[in-house]
Structure formats: structure tokens, C-alpha cells
């Protein structure tokens, strides 16, 4: 049977729970005995029976008397099965409302006929728009309180229609109802003969299923690259969920933002017949014809499909849920599909108090429950789409500390003048307290050129340490700093919550200090990519960074200065790096 998620939203006490309880009861969808047991409970507690209690299964919820989270319940019509999500109306629970509403394909929005359009009626309408829910039916409840009067209904309708129109949301219908008494819920109400439209249930059945995304261009975010070599499985599987489109064995794929290319060798799966095609909605995996270095978060696109956008600066519309405001210049983590990058709020274009939709300028902060248009900037280039083109790669969440603090959609690309790292470095250099010694003096004293050497790959730490030993025993001043050392001292406050780029930034700062001191600075990274190397290079400039890759080359632009194959022994590997240092005149050759 066909299935659909619908959400019910609205201002607190406008009757959502009642409407849902009623829908469940009227479609005979309650478990046997449930209605009676709730009636009994009400009797025992000398409370009048409320349909809303059916949903309030939680003890503490009943004592508070408001829906605090999106409950899920189920009902069937002849047409299909519905999962119905009750979203709390209270502003304090906006994040719960979003959690519920985001799963829905369609929404019922309730407005109390007597109280009229309230702050949350507006906010919820706007949130539905941001969440991308296009099918909305507005239900004007408690018509009994306004004597089933058409004028009262029209007043609410006109006002609310105008509000939704501001951002282009056109509801499928406005329905006058009395949920408690079942008026216009299932069958046309005799009390409102002036209303010629359909009942709530009929309108629900008129909602249409989300369109299949199979015809759209192919998009898949790499969740992970699996190797199960320990279990005698030598497949290297690129795993993820296909967001749209189709992909076949033999087709060429491009990984963004690195733009590495390969062809699909096989589709992998467990307990399924061999296949040659994967399509939207599937959690799946494939292997590639060539071994290329890809990372979780890379966006897979078919070579023949439109490419995504890629860059560090983009305009978004977002809602802020965090307890502390979003602040210009502070670092956050952005999650888009499987990608995680460090992001900064660069500029606030306008902040709207969602209930009023007014634009305010000159803001440095976005407060809790506010909606804003703003410009975000990342340190590393990000592959994305505009939300109007591709829902799944056009929307993101922002993590502040450990919590998801915002959700947003990308509405435009912004050309960036200087990259965030370059600006950061310019600031750092401007405030650097220079000593009286020039670097040339130091280099002369030490008889070497200051350089940073980055070893990349699984065997990187071993090789780095060997080289350090070699240089020191040959009278050079070199220092190897491992990842754990960076994290334990300088990075004691680094939790990973800020994203990897923050680690890379700190490493770059260390590289800058050590090289400025005239040393040969060495460090290792198990993983690295062009963007991260770029951050390191900018930060340690004017000292060139030398790159030694052990194993698979992770770079698509940067050509490693030395490449060590997995088969090569460490001694030979060391000699290659030593030769590199000689070739680059880092250390005078006769010393080696």
C-alpha cells in the first residue's frame, strides 16, 4: 500500500492534537481499547475527555499539557497509509517542529478561527517554505466558537493568504472545521453549508507523492570508502546513498570538489542479485576501475551530467536554533549531505523575525529562532547545488559546538575576492611582532634553508621520524611533530567539533613558527587533499612546503615532490627524500 508522511503544524492550542486524535478515531485506526482506556483515565482523574490525550502517551507530557515533540502515528484511508506527525506549536519547541515537519511530504496548518492568525501560524508557514514542503492545506479550526460564520473564516483566509504569498507559498485549500466535533473532517459539515469544498480527509487523499528523482542528474555523496581487507575482502567500495539520478557500470564519474575521475567497475551489495544500475533513494556502493584517492563527503556526479557548483563563498537562507546566537567571524561546522567543512558567517544580509518577515541591516548576530539571509564562507572549497535545482545538495545544517544549531538552503553563489585563509594570514602577518633578526641570518647560522616537509599516507609517521633522525645525526636542525603531539599540546582544546580544517590551520601555524625559526619542520598526515595543502602552504609562506606521498596519491592538482610506493622499503624511501632535500638546496649536498 502507498504510504505518505504528513505533518500537522500550527500555533499552540489551535487544536492539532485534537485533529489528529479525531482522524485516528474517525478512520478506525486506533488500537482496540485505546479510546476506552483514555476515556477511563479521564474519568479516573475527573478530567473531561480530550481527543488530544490519545497522543499524549507520555506521563510528563500530560502533566505539562502541551505537545513537546513530534509524535508519530498512523492511519489508513482507502487510498493509502499515512504516517502523521504532530508538531508542537510552542516556540520553545521549534526544533521539534522542524524535526517532524522535515519528514513530511505535505502539511496541514491549523489556525484557530477565534484567535486568528498568530505569531507561530506565520513562523510555521515560513518554516514549511524553507523546509521545502510545497503541499499545504490550511485548516481553520474551532469554527463552533465563531458560530460557523463564513465572514470569520474569510477574514482568517485573506490575512493568511497574503502572508504566505510574500514568499510564494500557495496553499492547496483553506478548510473551515471544528475538529472536536468532527465538522468537515470526514464528511461535509451540515453546519457550514456555505463551504462547498472538500473535507479534511478528502484533501489529504488529494496530496500527491513526491516526484521520483530518477530522471534528475546523478548525485551521490560519498559516505565512506570501505576496505574489509582484514576479513579477506579486497573490494574497495565507495558507499553512499544515491540522492538523484541513475548510474550504470562502465559510466564515467567525477568526484567534486577535487574533480578526480574514474569509471564504475561494479555495483556492490549484500544479499542481492548482481546489478549494473543504481538509482535514486538507494543506499548502495560501487567499485572503480582505477584506484583514486577519494574521501567521505566527496560529491559523485556523472561525467555527462551538469556539474555541481563549487567554491568557498555562497549565499544562504537559514533558521537559527542555537542557544547562543550565530556570530560573524566565529567558526562552525557545516554538514551538507555527507560533507563536513569548517564554515564562518561572513556577512548578514538581512534578518527576519519570521513572524514579521522584516529586513534589518547592520546585524552581527543571528538570534535564536530567527531566520536570516547571509553569506557563508568555508576554508576549503565545497561542492553544492542551489536548493531550487537540487534539494539534497542545496541544503545543509550547521553545528555549533556539539549541537545542530541551524538548517538552511543555498540560494546563490558568491564570487570570493581573497580566500578566507589568505585574509587570515594577512591579518596574522600584520600583527606579527617582528624581532631584529632576519631569516637569512638564521639560515646562514644553521647552514640550511628552512622548509616544511609534509609526509602523507599510512607510513608517513615512520618515514618522517627516520628522516628527522638522519638530518639531526648529520648536523642539521630538524624537528618532527606528529599528529598526536599537535593535538595534545597546542590542540588540547581541539575536539573535532570544529571540523578538520581547524586542525590543519593549527598545523599550518606551527609550520610557520618552526620554519620562521629556521628549522626543517616535518609532520605527517594520514589523509590530505589539495585544499588542505593549500591552507598549509598559505600559512607557512614564504617557506615552500615539500610533499612526500606514501602510497596512493591523494592530490589531483599538486604533484608530490616524492612518491613512495607501498612496496618500497623505508630505507630506500628515506634516501629518496634525502635526495629531494639536496636537489632543492635545502641542505648543502656535501653534508649528506
Amino acid at each position: 500500500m502507498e504510504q505518505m508522511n504528513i505533518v500537522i503544524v500550527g500555533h499552540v492550542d489551535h487544536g492539532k492534537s485534537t485533529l489528529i486524535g479525531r482522524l485516528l478515531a474517525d478512520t478506525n485506526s486506533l488500537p482496540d481499547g485505546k479510546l476506552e482506556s483514555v476515556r477511563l483515565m479521564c474519568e479516573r482523574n475527573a478530567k473531561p475527555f480530550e481527543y488530544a490525550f490519545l497522543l499524549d502517551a507520555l506521563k510528563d507530557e500530560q502533566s505539562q499539557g502541551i505537545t513537546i515533540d513530534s509524535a508519530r502515528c498512523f492511519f489508513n484511508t482507502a487510498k493509502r497509509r499515512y504516517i502523521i506527525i504532530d508538531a508542537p506549536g510552542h516556540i520553545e519547541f521549534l526544533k521539534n517542529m522542524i524535526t517532524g515537519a522535515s519528514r513530511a511530504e505535505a502539511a496541514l496548518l491549523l489556525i484557530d478561527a477565534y484567535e486568528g492568525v498568530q505569531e507561530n501560524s506565520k513562523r510555521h508557514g515560513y518554516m514549511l517554505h524553507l523546509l521545502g514542503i510545497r503541499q499545504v492545506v490550511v485548516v481553520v479550526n474551532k469554527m463552533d466558537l465563531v458560530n460557523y460564520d463564513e465572514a470569520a473564516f474569510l477574514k482568517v483566509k485573506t490575512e493568511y493568504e497574503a502572508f504566505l504569498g510574500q514568499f510564494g507559498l500557495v496553499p492547496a485549500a483553506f478548510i473551515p472545521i471544528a475538529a472536536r466535533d468532527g465538522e468537515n473532517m470526514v464528511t461535509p459539515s451540515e453546519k457550514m453549508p456555505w463551504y462547498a469544498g472538500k473535507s479534511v480527509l478528502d484533501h489529504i487523499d488529494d496530496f500527491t507523492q513526491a516526484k521520483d528523482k530518477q530522471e534528475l542528474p546523478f548525485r551521490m555523496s560519498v559516505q565512506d570508502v570501505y576496505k574489509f581487507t582484514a576479513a579477506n575482502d579486497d573490494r574497495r567500495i565507495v558507499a553512499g546513498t544515491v540522492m538523484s539520478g541513475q548510474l550504470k557500470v562502465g559510466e564515467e564519474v567525477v568526484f567534486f570538489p577535487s574533480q578526480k575521475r574514474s569509471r564504475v567497475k561494479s555495483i556492490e551489495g549484500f544479499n542481492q542479485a548482481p546489478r549494473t544500475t543504481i538509482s535514486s533513494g538507494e543506499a548502495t556502493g560501487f567499485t572503480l576501475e582505477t584506484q583514486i584517492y577519494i574521501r567521505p563527503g566527496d560529491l559523485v556526479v556523472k561525467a555527462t551530467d551538469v556539474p555541481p557548483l563549487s567554491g568557498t563563498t555562497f549565499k544562504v537562507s537559514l533558521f537559527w536554533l542555537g542557544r547562543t546566537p550565530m556570530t560573524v567571524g566565529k567558526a562552525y561546522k557545516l554538514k551538507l549531505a555527507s560533507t563536513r567543512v569548517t564554515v564562518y558567517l561572513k556577512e548578514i544580509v538581512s534578518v527576519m523575525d519570521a513572524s514579521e518577515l522584516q529586513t534589518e541591516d547592520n546585524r552581527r548576530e543571528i538570534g535564536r529562532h530567527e531566520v536570516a539571509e547571509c553569506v557563508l564562507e568555508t576554508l576549503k572549497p565545497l561542492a553544492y547545488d542551489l536548493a531550487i535545482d537540487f534539494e539534497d545538495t542545496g541544503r545543509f545544517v550547521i553545528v555549533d559546538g556539539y549541537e545542530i544549531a541551524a538548517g538552511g538552503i543555498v540560494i546563490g553563489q558568491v564570487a570570493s575576492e581573497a580566500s578566507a585563509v589568505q585574509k587570515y594570514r594577512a591579518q596574522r602577518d600584520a600583527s606579527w611582532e617582528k624581532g631584529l633578526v632576519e631569516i637569512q641570518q638564521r639560515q646562514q647560522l644553521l647552514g640550511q634553508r628552512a622548509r616544511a616537509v609534509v609526509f602523507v599516507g599510512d607510513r608517513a609517521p615512520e618515514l618522517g621520524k627516520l628522516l628527522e633522525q638522519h638530518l639531526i645525526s648529520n648536523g642539521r636542525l630538524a624537528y618532527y611533530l606528529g599528529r598526536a603531539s599537535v593535538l595534545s599540546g597546542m590542540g588540547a582544546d581541539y575536539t573535532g567539533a570544529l571540523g578538520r580544517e581547524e586542525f590543519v590551520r593549527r598545523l599550518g601555524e606551527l609550520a610557520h613558527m618552526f620554519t620562521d625559526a629556521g628549522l626543517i619542520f616535518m609532520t605527517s598526515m594520514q589523509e590530505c587533499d589539495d585544499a588542505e595543502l593549500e591552507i598549509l602552504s598559505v600559512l607557512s609562506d614564504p617557506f615552500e612546503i615539500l610533499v612526500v606521498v606514501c602510497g596512493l596519491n591523494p592530490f589531483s592538482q599538486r604533484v608530490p615532490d616524492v612518491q613512495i610506493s607501498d612496496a618500497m622499503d623505508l630505507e630506500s624511501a628515506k634516501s629518496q627524500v634525502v635526495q629531494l632535500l639536496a636537489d632543492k638546496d635545502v641542505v648543502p649536498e656535501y653534508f649528506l
Partner: protein
Amino acid sequence: MLWSIGKDSTVLLWLARKAFFGHVPFPLVHIDTSYKVPEMITYRDKFALEWNLNLVVGQNEAALKAKETFPDGKIDRIACCKALKANALKHTLSGEWPRKRMNHQTRQLEYDTNTEPYTGVIVGARADEEGSRSKERYFSPRDKQSDWDVGDQPPEFWNQFKTDFAPGTHVRIHPLLDWTELNIWEYIARENIPIISLYFDQGEGKRYRSLGCYPCTTPVESTSTTVQEIVQELKSGKFSNIAERSGRAQDKEDGGGLESLRREGYM
């Protein structure tokens, strides 16, 4: 991942095998109350070996030794479940109590030398099972006291979940939250998952709809002998509107029993 041997957690295990292309890269924790139907233990060990699972078993050995249990007549059901399930789970996860691990060479459970605490568990809880479940998240963090603040759950939308945690946080992950009992059986049918025979009528007109300890779980009247028959029974038959856990006596002791046990850690 918690594996109770029941249909939900076995479906969850199957999903893990699918997600990791035939491998299960994390331990499967089974809490053995010692009152499980013996067939469950046979089934557990058989598939742990066959599927190359890292099976870890925990038990409240002290309570069992002292016979401080409901079947021994010493305590009521709530206290017994708390001791044999909630506490056993809590201390097995934390590594404070001995854990046994399946040794695939000797094909025996042996005491595990690894006592590292697990910082998270993946569980097969479903929203449709019980009112109190419907307030969960896919990723539900619990703080150090295992406290569960229903009013302040992290937002989840667009397939983005709370995956960053302060040190010391314990996280529960509920991948099956939006599945129904019917979904479970339909998936078992689709994937042809070997499911324990206790769920089927063995000729006496009875089968288990939900598995638990034998002193506290009664079979339901049903002649379903295949997965297909169960699917039919749930769709249109006698169980289409009777709550699944109606055969579980421990749920009935007090109205909020399940709720309070959840807070203790019993799934």
C-alpha cells in the same frame, strides 16, 4: 549493536550486514537474563558463528546466583527486569561487569579481557510499539547519568543527525524508529532472513509475537507457520489492531513501567 535475538534486532543486524556489504564492523551485545527460551540461545550462537559476528554477552550474574529474581519469587517483575535487563545492560556496556565474547576458534563464549566502555549502542526500538517510544530520535544522546530529557531532544532533519558529542556522552541510535511491526515482517519476507522458529506455530496453534523471558511471555493463539502468513495476519487478520506487546506481562505492572525502565536503560 544490541541483539536480543528477536525479530526487530535481527532485522537491524541484517541491515548492518547490508550496510557493510556482508560484514558487521561492531560488536553485538546480547543481555542474557538466563530466562530466555533455550532455543534463542542456540539460534544466537549458530548465527554468530555463521555470520562471523563479534558477539558479546552480558548477564547479572550476582542476582542470578542469589536467586534475586521474579521467577524465583523473591521480587516483582519490575524489579526483576530492572536487575536482569536494565542493570545488566548498563554494566555490560560500561565494562564494569564481566563480558563474554564468542571465540570463533573454540566456538565458545569466553570471558573477555577487553573491559573498555561502549560509548553508544544501536538498538531496534520502533516508534509504533509503545507511546513512550514515539518521542525518540534516531540519534538520542544520554548524559552521564543516562538521563533522557524528552523535552530537549536534538533536532533531526534532512537526514542530518546529531553526531558530535561531548566526552562522556552515551548515545543510542534507533535506525528502525519509523518501522512498524508489519514493515519488519515484510522486510523479513523480502530479504528471506532466517528468523527464530518461536515466531511460528509449531502445530499447537500458538506462536510468539514478541520474544522475552519464558516466565513472562505468553504465546498468542495463531496458526501462522510462515512469514507470509504472519504478514497476512498483521495486515488484515486478527492482529491488525491489537498491540504487539500484549503478550508481555511485565508491561502491565504499572502504567509507566516501560517508561521508567527506559530511563534505567532497558530497551
